[in-house]
């Protein structure tokens, strides 16, 4: 139960950063916070009380193993998160090169 609360909080903080912070890099950080929140949500959905990691070793019987599917999804999501953040940061470098500022309200040549 506590994990649901934690993931909801993480997502909330991420979105809050996005909505309030003007600096573009802070926004991208917000995005990765949301991503981690979502990953935590996925894992906690797959978690079953009192069961161990889904590695079938001689000592572990299949009956008390946690659901592996969300963990596979999280694995994929983490990589997506990394690649999006990498691309976003490199684009921010280029934006800074042109606009000399990272304030989102200044970076708005294309409007109306």
């Amino acid at each position, binding site marked *: *139960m506590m*994990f*649901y*609360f934690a993931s*909801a*909080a993480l*997502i*909330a903080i991420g*979105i*809050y950063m996005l*909505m*309030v912070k003007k600096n573009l890099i802070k926004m991208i950080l917000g995005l990765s916070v949301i991503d981690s929140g979502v990953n935590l*949500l996925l894992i*906690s*959905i*797959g*978690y*079953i*009380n*009192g*069961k161990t*990691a*889904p*590695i*079938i*070793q*001689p000592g572990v019987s*299949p009956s008390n*193993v946690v*659901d*592996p*599917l969300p*963990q*596979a*999804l999280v*694995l*994929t999501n*983490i*990589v*997506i998160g*990394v*690649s*999006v953040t*990498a*691309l976003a*940061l*490199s*684009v921010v*470098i*280029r934006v*800074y*090169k042109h606009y000399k500022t990272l304030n989102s309200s200044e970076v708005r040549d294309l409007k109306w």
Partner: protein
Amino acid sequence: MIKRLVSIIILAVVITSLFMVLSETAPFGDDETVVSHRYIYKGVDETGSANLVTAVVLNYRGFDTLGEVTVLFVAATGVGAALYTRKHPVRKNKVEASLIVKTGSKLLFPMMLLFGAYIFVHGHLTPGGGFQGGAVIATAFVFKYISDTRYSIDHVGFTKMESASGMIFAGLGIMGLLLGGYFLLNILPNGTPGELISAGILPIIYIAIGIKVGAELTGIIDRMMGVEA
């Protein structure tokens, strides 16, 4: 000030609804679903890999991982395209690393590479896999970058490795289609779970992924280092 208030209100609505829905319907840790039931109980003997997560990641939902690798590949190319500069980026890292860091990196670099390789080779047995192994290798190279200010990786070699490993993964998929009729079918025998040579093509895929991820992450870091803001 109002903006903050409004955003807090919106957030409150969204998150409380999310939380209430979650706590109501999915009590924490109830028993597993139909789909995962099969993964858990028949996963090992169907795929032969002890690590069920690897079984799901590579075999049951191998296509996702292929997509996954492509995403990373696209991101690497994207970063390359975005930060492309006519001349080759020469590094102007002013800060000279201290002696301890230099010698430490000389000693530890091969160890970290070995450890990374160990992780993705035993992907199907022990926790971790291609992605985690690749990340460790990338940290090894970052460590090298920090210590030696003039060091930069051999681009041609890295791209070749990247493409080779990518092609292995996709190639296996296509071979699975040609031979067994289904894309990414596990052609090789499962072998006995727990053994190093087991779970058919899974270890091969994980090795390919490990190398690919390692090369790409290092490539990204190298391009980012090369560009001054």
